[in-house]
């Protein structure tokens, strides 16, 4: 019985790692690989292209995260619950 909880945590962490890799694979397929191919004429080194592609991804994701933060209620989830209880 005492081993149940750590086992559950390990299982959850395993799922988190698995799905994070899965999400990274999908982002890579749809967003990174085409950029790597598009840049190959201008930037021959794969490593440099990869850096550029990842940096671009971070830059274009920032505004999306910004809007998500703005449209998720002020002060995050905990405060929202307090507001709702008031």
């Amino acid at each position, binding site marked *: 019985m005492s081993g149940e909880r750590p086992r559950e945590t390990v299982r*959850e962490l395993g*799922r*988190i790692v698995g*799905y*994070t890799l*899965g*999400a990274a*694979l*999908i*982002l890579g*397929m*749809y*967003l990174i*690989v*085409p*950029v*790597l*191919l*598009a840049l*190959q*004429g201008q930037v021959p080194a*794969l490593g440099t292209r990869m850096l550029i592609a990842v940096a671009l991804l971070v830059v*274009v*994701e920032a*505004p*999306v995260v910004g*809007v*998500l933060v*703005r*449209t*998720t*209620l*002020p002060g995050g*989830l905990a405060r*929202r*619950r307090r*507001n*709702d209880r*008031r």
Partner: protein
Amino acid sequence: MVLLTLLGEIARFLGFITIVLISVVGFRLLFYFRSFFLHSDRYRRRQPVSDDTLRALPALPFLKIQITTRGSPGSTEVVQRGIQSVMQLIAEAPDLYQERVSIEVLTDSVAEKETLEAVFRSGRVAVEGTVVVVPADYQTPHGTQLKARSLHYLVELRRSGFNRKPGRTFIVQYDEESVMRPGELRKLVFYLATVGKPLTEGPIFYPLEYCDATPICRAMEANRPLGCYECREVMEAGVPLHLHGSNLVVDEALVNDIGWDIGTFDGQPFIAEDYVFGVQVLLRYGPEVFGWHGCVMLEQPPFSLKSAFRQRYRWIVGVLQGVAMLPRMAEFHAMPARLRRQLIWGTRYRVATFALGLPTGLFSLLYLLYQGSLLMRSMATQPLPAPLMLWLVLVGYMWLNGLLIGAWYNVSTNDQLSSRGRWLEVTRVLSVAPLAGIAESAAGFWATVNWLSGKRRVSWVTTPKTTPADRTADAGRPA
């Protein structure tokens, strides 16, 4: 070598087809993201509204929370959830809400009436709650069927004075599973007291019973909250290319005037009564009555792929019925040509993007695998000209972010999920995104193909609201 060259040529051809298909879907995504980036402040009301703020207003409208249910298995439990949230609001400030909020449940089931009346009696404070059973033999003058028939029954009661209230009154339309938390209801009261356009909508998120849905259904449901950015745009523009039946708030005088007696389409019942209703309001009142209240309603995803498929199939057939109905209406021909075109072609374009999602998803998956193989083999060739490749990346960016945005709104409003759980859910949605996209659009594709080939029979099976109801959904149905 010849074989490789041939494969390369096929892949290039596939790439160009993908570009055409993706562009059809991509332009619609641009429309969503224009609203997302430029007008996100209007999407939802962020500032909390307190009871004191409402008390300070010169006049408050009356709110009738109207829950429409068929009384199918599992529905009573979820209807209670929505009722309890309203009762919680009333219990927090009875002096403010008891005289200004009532709940009306419209059901086909006598057994459900008894259960729900007991719920109304069990509250800490008295709540004005009524359960109306639609008589089995009730018929509207135009022979309307399904949900609109029930809605019209209540309109007829109201026209004859049922539950009439002094002052301005709004009907807040709930589906069986809808919940509005007290904080959002307060914001809604504030909006209606200060702006109060006669027909408004707000965003819907899908966090309820989230973990009981299959991963594909959770990912399919992540497509929807971004769609509400489009809803906001069309509602504020006053051209209801899309109108959802829940989180729809209508002035009682307007709904009493229009009614829900929408008739039938070539002998078949209308299954998108909300769309037809929106069009009728536009034809009679013009675009000015539409608006966006921005208060969030919570609902639940379908539990199984089968239920999700049927739900999407129904939406598309319903909208196609509505578009086909328009030219048969005399008022439609009296509208300005520009508005007519907007309504017809705007809706057709929406349906086309839904249906074309299937070939787009399949082709782009094959094409991406080809691109991946080029990269793995370090081949110094570009499958398509660079600007076209960047356009593909832009559409991919919008599509994946659409899912990320929807998944975040769904999980961030789910109180049962920890931070780790939220991360897990968002990454899970992204991991199954291609499959979910194909499943989502397959229903739209199939509905459109059937419609175009003349198979226009419709059936009404409500989406099961509990997992046991979902498991037994087909029991007893004719094969």
